[in-house]
């Protein structure tokens, strides 16, 4: 009866988000690249690709990525063990705070980072006082060191969350069996624990590698033009309106990022298939630890706090402290809510409205995409997941530029394109969250709904959506946080009435209004932290599993 017709309905519903993704990611990027390669006849792509500059940028790009991943894993892995094994109060809040670096707009991070690690920054001042020097001793914020450290700042929380989620799933009975069978601690780690966390460790490393490879504002500011990555070269080329060169380099970059993204995608499938936290994982409370262990913990913890919490605190301080008048003031906060031409009220409203729209759109797109995973049509789930992950792996500059030339200008639409850019950025994690909820849905409940006479629509509304609500909330909050921090596309496309807070921070910095910039950054940070505390209260699964 209705069977035949309903068979096509799912295909229809899934194809809408897929078409949107293709239209707003694949089309603009391909347009820009092809235009550069085919129309700019005076640039020889081959020359560009074999030039010394490109070679240097490429090598440096790989080096900084590898080093960043290495440092991140080195510092993050102990944290993962700590987080998983030790019980302490306020774990939920700490977990929420750990996500903050991940979704902070990079420009904000750079400001805080320099303040902590740069010359005459906090670390430097302490060192100078201790050693009685009047000139700068420590400058960890420039060059390769600065870039790698800043990348670590961003990604250590990622490693901690993902690997600790995996550790939480490890049955303590496995560990105990090993111990009973006579395994030493070393053997236990090598044979049982390491293989168990290897998939999630790989996934976290690949994700880190992806972000570090296409990282832009950090390398631009801290690299001081001495250190170029492929993304910087693309930016330079676009700025000089040398499309041919931009396209040639973008092609190389895309090949590599797609490789990384594909590996991430394949391995992360293995991770999501496992269940949620095992109640039987071994946990120890703080009081039970030896003094020696506590000392080591304290040392490690202080490194982590300085590296991860330091810049965030610096941002908070920057919101209230005017470095020129050397006094504390609330004027920055006032400014954010004032509505003059330079006031923050319109950008604040824009930020909230655009991000809200982007969130709703992301959720609406993510739900059918998540459902596509349930269908055995062989290629649809694979393709949709790849498409959803694309924004992570594509140069944000290329995408922003593509959206501009291919869509915003010809069609004369501005703010919808901004909303779409923000949606695209939040979509990957939103989709993953909802997808993991969809996969965990108990089939038996759906069958019961069917048997009890619910129509397809009724089943969706009354049974499925309520079951998916935790996953949807988590996904929505992720989408919101990433949307509100989006900057590349907005910076490029927006006219002043479309400026968001993230963009306006730039303006304030240019006008040397540091307190105003700090205050705007603080608002963004607060919005993100609030969002994540909400997730923590509402969701059953931990973040690591969602990612």
């Amino acid at each position, binding site marked *: 009866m209705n069977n035949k017709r309903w068979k096509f309905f799912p295909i229809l519903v899934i194809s809408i988000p897929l078409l949107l993704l293709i239209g707003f990611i694949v089309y603009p990027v391909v347009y820009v690249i092809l235009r550069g390669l085919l129309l700019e006849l005076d640039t020889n792509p081959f020359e560009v690709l074999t030039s010394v500059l490109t070679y240097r940028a490429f090598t440096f790009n790989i080096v900084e990525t590898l080093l960043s991943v290495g440092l991140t894993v080195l510092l993050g892995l102990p944290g993962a063990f700590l987080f998983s094994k030790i019980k302490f109060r306020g774990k939920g809040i700490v977990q929420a705070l750990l996500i903050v670096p991940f979704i902070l707009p990079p420009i904000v991070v750079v400001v805080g980072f320099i303040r902590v690690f740069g010359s005459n920054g906090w670390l430097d001042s302490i060192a100078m006082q201790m050693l009685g020097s009047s000139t700068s001793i420590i400058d960890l914020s420039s060059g390769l060191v600065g870039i790698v450290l800043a990348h670590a700042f961003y990604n250590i929380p990622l490693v901690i969350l993902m690997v600790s989620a995996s550790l939480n799933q490890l049955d303590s009975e496995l560990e105990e069996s090993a111990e009973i069978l006579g395994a030493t601690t070393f053997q236990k780690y090598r044979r049982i624990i390491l293989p168990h966390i290897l998939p999630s460790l790989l996934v976290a490393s690949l994700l880190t590698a992806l972000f570090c490879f296409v990282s832009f504002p950090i390398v631009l500011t801290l690299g001081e033009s001495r250190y170029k990555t492929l993304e910087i070269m693309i930016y330079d080329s676009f700025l000089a309106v040398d499309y041919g060169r931009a396209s040639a380099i973008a092609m190389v970059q895309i090949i590599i990022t797609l490789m990384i993204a594909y590996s991430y995608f394949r391995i992360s499938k293995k991770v999501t298939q496992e269940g949620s936290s095992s109640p039987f994982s071994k946990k120890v409370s703080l009081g039970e630890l030896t003094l020696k262990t506590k000392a080591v913990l304290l040392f490690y913890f202080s490194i982590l706090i300085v590296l991860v919490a330091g810049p965030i605190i610096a941002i908070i301080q920057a919101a209230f402290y005017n470095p020129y008048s050397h006094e504390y003031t609330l004027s920055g906060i006032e400014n954010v809510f004032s509505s003059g031409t330079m006031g923050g009220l319109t950008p604040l409203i824009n930020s909230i409205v655009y991000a809200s729209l982007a969130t709703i759109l992301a959720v609406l797109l993510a739900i059918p995409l998540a459902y596509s995973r349930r269908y055995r049509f062989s290629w649809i789930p694979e393709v949709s997941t790849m498409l959803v992950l694309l924004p992570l792996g594509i140069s944000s500059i290329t995408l922003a530029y593509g959206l501009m030339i291919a869509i915003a200008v010809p069609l004369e639409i501005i703010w919808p394109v901004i909303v779409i850019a923000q949606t695209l950025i939040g979509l990957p994690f939103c989709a993953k969250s909802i997808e993991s909820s969809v996969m965990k849905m108990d089939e038996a409940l759906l069958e019961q709904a*069917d*048997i009890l*006479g*619910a129509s397809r629509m*009724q089943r969706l509304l009354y049974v499925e959506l309520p079951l998916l*609500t935790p996953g949807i909330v988590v996904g929505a909050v992720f989408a919101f946080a990433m949307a509100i921090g989006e900057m590349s596309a907005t910076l490029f496309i927006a006219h002043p009435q479309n400026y968001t807070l993230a963009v306006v921070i730039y303006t304030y910095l240019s006008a040397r209004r540091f307190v105003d910039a700090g205050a705007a950054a603080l608002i963004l940070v607060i919005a993100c932290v609030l969002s994540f505390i909400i997730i923590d209260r509402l969701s059953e699964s931990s973040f690591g599993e969602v990612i």
Partner: protein
Amino acid sequence: MVQLELVNLKRIFPDGTRVGPISLLIDDGEFMTLLGPSGSGKTTTLRMIAGFIEPGEGSVKFDGQDVNSVLPRDRNIGMVFQSIALFPNMNVFQNIAFGPEMDGWGHGQVVSRVEELADLLGIRTLLMRKITEISGGEGQRVALARALARAPGLLLLDEPLSALDPHLRVRLQREIRRIQKELGITTIYVTHNQDEAFSISDRIAILDDGVIKQVGTPGDIYSNPANAFVASFIGDGNVITCFEVDSQSNGSTIIVENKSYRIGIDSSKPLVKITVKPEDVRISDATSGTMVGTIESIVRLVRNWELGIIIEGQRIIALSEVIPNGFTESEVVGQQVSISFEEDSVRILT
């Protein structure tokens, strides 16, 4: 209340496992149990009746009408799963009310129906509880109430009690039977537990390896097993290979239907399989009887002893309330005993 007919139902799965052909007629108001070991196809058959699996061949008929192309939601069935599957985001009331609400009943109608069922199942006090706040047994009752809410014509139950402890299980078995009789609703029950099947069913269909081995009342199946599988499956019945002998040849014969048989294999004679239940095997002193064998194992059960006796190379299980012949548990193994069978308790298997 529906008459259910399965006509040559068959389904082959991609990995090669097959279910069917299955043909079965269940009367209106009958309580039919599908009984069999794991993997025998009981659940698959049940799901084909429900409409979750499409039969490869054959059809399912409700009151003579083919329902193969009818969606599960339109088949007017109630179903209770092993996992209960109560909607976690709703409370007990809302779970039970789900079916009627989907059908568009008015709020007043829904309320009175839910209360009626809650009374029937003794869960009236639980109506406002969250699903996480009720016990396993209470959950089963809620699931049953939910399944019955729309007054369906057919009730399907897939091992609903297997997760409960034995006492609770027995209590609920009886309740289910009572309710079923009271409502007169055609019911298909799936289980692998023989006691359960025997105590609550009108008829039982024994399944093995995807096909029906025998259908009949519990008494029928117990006393007259149709084949070796049923004979050994039900009550651990013994299946003994014998050959016919002339009557009045020396001892060790069993007399069934005026023919004499001896246990064992004689290549010159036609072979026959007979069956006898362990509780019908009598053990006595080795000297006193005609069939003599050696005790090879002894196991203490809740109510009696289970003895394994080897005769002519075949193993026969016997149940005895005491250890025979006055032996102690440690001595009895290896002793010789003679066995005999309770009159009229032996059947020939075809």
